[in-house]
């Protein structure tokens, strides 16, 4: 308490509960409000900005449906759903652009959430969902699919990639849990790096042995939304939904965990359970994202930083913001890639990094990024 008790005893008696000092009171303090208003009231501006971001996401999504190798007017977009007449434009919209946009939304949100989860559980700003070996596992599985089974269809890649991602992360988890303390973040990261290197070497070995495999694989490996249709959307959506729900549900636990594992444990949180659920959610989210669109880097590690720069370190806001900002980046990059290189396209994995990284570097230079 900042007031000296003796001098103000009289006033304090009549004033009710003692005031917190200004340093303790947060922005938009709920001191004046009845209890129980909770999250939204105290952080009203965050909700408003989030709604604005969702609106921006809507604009980007509509742009993604409208523009491509052939711009289609907005009226046609509505007609494609409500007055379908089988014309080329309507077909393009329904079977190509809308599923592609939806896949981009899902993949972007998944990558953003997974990045936030990884950074929250490992308390490491460098945590990349790929650390758990999911990207390397998916890549090796796809290469095996091409080389051994001669598979060329994207929707079958999805299953292989997902199984590969899950198997690799299971391997990483079991290797990282060896030893006395079980799976600590550092041990997991190191095990993940080693497993990724091993699987990457095996992948490269196959690619060098069979040049036809390389020819097919290199287009998957760059990360692209081209040709992602409703079937792929249907394949990955269940995993994305389950992972997303688990991620949002963990946000409060992540806040506690950010105080440090010992403090969290002493506050009654079951740390191992949290980390286990988080790893499971990351594998579901990133596994589905890689299976659908190939390995797309950069979004996972960096979007949570941007979200944190806006909202501060509260994970109940960082995760939703990441889930909205990441698809804005991804879909925006996809549109740019389609428009800039008409009639062909530059894959989204490339454009995301090339467009997003300078913005990210500018942000790193300008702002004092909120620490974890």
């Amino acid at each position, binding site marked *: 308490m900042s007031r000296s008790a003796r001098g103000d005893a009289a006033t304090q008696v009549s004033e009710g509960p003692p005031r917190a000092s200004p340093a303790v009171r947060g922005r938009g303090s709920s001191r004046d409000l009845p209890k129980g208003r909770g999250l939204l009231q105290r952080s009203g501006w965050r909700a408003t900005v989030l709604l604005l971001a969702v609106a921006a996401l809507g604009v980007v999504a509509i742009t993604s449906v409208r523009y491509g190798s052939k711009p289609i007017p907005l009226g046609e977009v509505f007609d494609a759903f409500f007055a379908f007449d089988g014309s080329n434009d309507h077909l393009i919209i329904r079977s190509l652009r809308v599923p592609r946009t939806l896949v981009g939304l899902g993949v972007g949100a998944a990558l953003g959430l997974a990045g936030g989860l990884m950074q929250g559980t490992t308390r490491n700003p460098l945590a990349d969902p790929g650390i758990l070996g999911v990207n390397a596992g998916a890549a090796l599985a796809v290469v095996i699919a091409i080389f051994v089974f001669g598979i060329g269809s994207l929707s079958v890649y999805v299953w292989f990639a997902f199984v590969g991602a899950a198997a690799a992360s299971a391997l990483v988890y079991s*290797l990282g849990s060896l*030893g006395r303390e079980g799976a600590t973040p550092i041990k997991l990261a*190191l095990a993940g790096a080693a497993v990724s290197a091993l699987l990457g*070497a095996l992948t*490269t070995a196959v690619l*060098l042995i069979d040049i036809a495999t390389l020819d097919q694989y290199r287009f998957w490996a760059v990360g692209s939304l081209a040709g992602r249709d409703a079937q792929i959307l249907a394949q990955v959506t269940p995993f994305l939904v389950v992972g997303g729900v688990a991620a949002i549900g963990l946000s409060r636990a992540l806040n506690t965990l950010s105080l440090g594992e010992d403090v969290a444990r002493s506050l009654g949180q079951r740390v191992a359970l949290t980390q286990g659920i988080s790893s499971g959610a990351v594998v579901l989210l990133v596994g589905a994202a890689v299976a659908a669109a190939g390995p797309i880097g*950069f979004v996972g590690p960096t979007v949570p930083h941007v979200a944190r720069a806006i909202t501060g370190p509260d994970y109940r806001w960082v995760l939703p913001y990441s889930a909205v900002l990441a698809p804005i980046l991804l879909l925006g990059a996809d549109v740019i890639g389609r428009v800039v290189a008409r009639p062909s396209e530059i894959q989204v994995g*490339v454009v995301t*990094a090339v467009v997003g990284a300078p913005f990210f570097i500018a942000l790193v*230079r300008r702002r004092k990024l909120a620490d974890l």
Partner: protein
Amino acid sequence: MSAPAKQRRLVTVERLPSLGADQVSVRLARPRVSARVSARTVSVCVVVFGLVLFASAVNVSVGDFPIPLSDVFPAIVGQGNPDSDFIVRVLRLPRSLTGILVGAAFGMSGAIFQSLARNPLASPDIIGIEAGAAFAAVLVIVILDPNTVGVTAGALIGALATAVAIYVLAYRRGVTGYRLVLVGIGVTAVLSGLTSYLLTRANIYDAARAVAWLTGSLNGRGWEHVGPVGASMLVLVPATLLLGRHLRGLQLGDDAARGLGVRIEVARGGLILAGVGLAATAVASAGPVAFVALISPQIARRLAGSASGALVPAALTGALVTLASDLVGRQAFGNVELPVGVITAIVGAPYFLWLLARANRVGRGG
């Protein structure tokens, strides 16, 4: 204990049992210097050097045109039959030499960083350097003529330019570690995205060459590669050894080191620069060969038994690892030749995991 003034020998070697079982002091009469060396380290170095020579002889002799071991030395000096001479002097000898130099550079660089970080799992994966070298190399392979010298030069320029760019971008009234690493992530992301893009736009044969380079390969390494690596090591290795005297002091922590008279900023900055230079030159010549920088210092430490960065044994071990992996990659899979980077990763990753598990069991892992 000193020799009588009249009868001073040129070199005096004495054991120092109070300092350790294998500690030996070596004193020269002219110039008047003395040094303390570990006999075990010296013997390890001699043995590993012998193994390196043997491995390079084997590497030179096996291949599509096998050359008996007894003919290897005559071929090197040009006294064998013309075919052997050509194969050895133009093809295999420079490849082995490049492997030795690159492995030594990686090993020494790894030893520096593991010592400075006081962490056996550190490695000179300088954020950005490998991505910069990779992008420049793939650019040269895909867009320009895939002439190997151009690739090396491009890779070196790419690595150094990227390091400078990252430092400049992260500099804002000083460089904090956090900002440097984040900027490194951003720059690496841009470069890897562009590299992947180039791989999709290239014709398939250029793409295959690029993938082979990106793994770390000694294919087609000739005298034009030995030159640059050799030249840079000629400069960097003596500098590293001179600065390496301070490694032991630096490991005690900044305050103790300062108290012992170590000039911390100079020593640490110089060692980092030397480590980066060695890693950049090695990557430029052979691509990012996985794990050599990580495991060679560990193997050397276990052999030589010293706790601090054993720079020369690490370099020799790196050379041996690289040569052996190249040999396995060339010969072990029938008519398929796998690049050295694949073998070092396939062998190195499990070894790294074993190190990790071992450290965990003893309680040093987390």
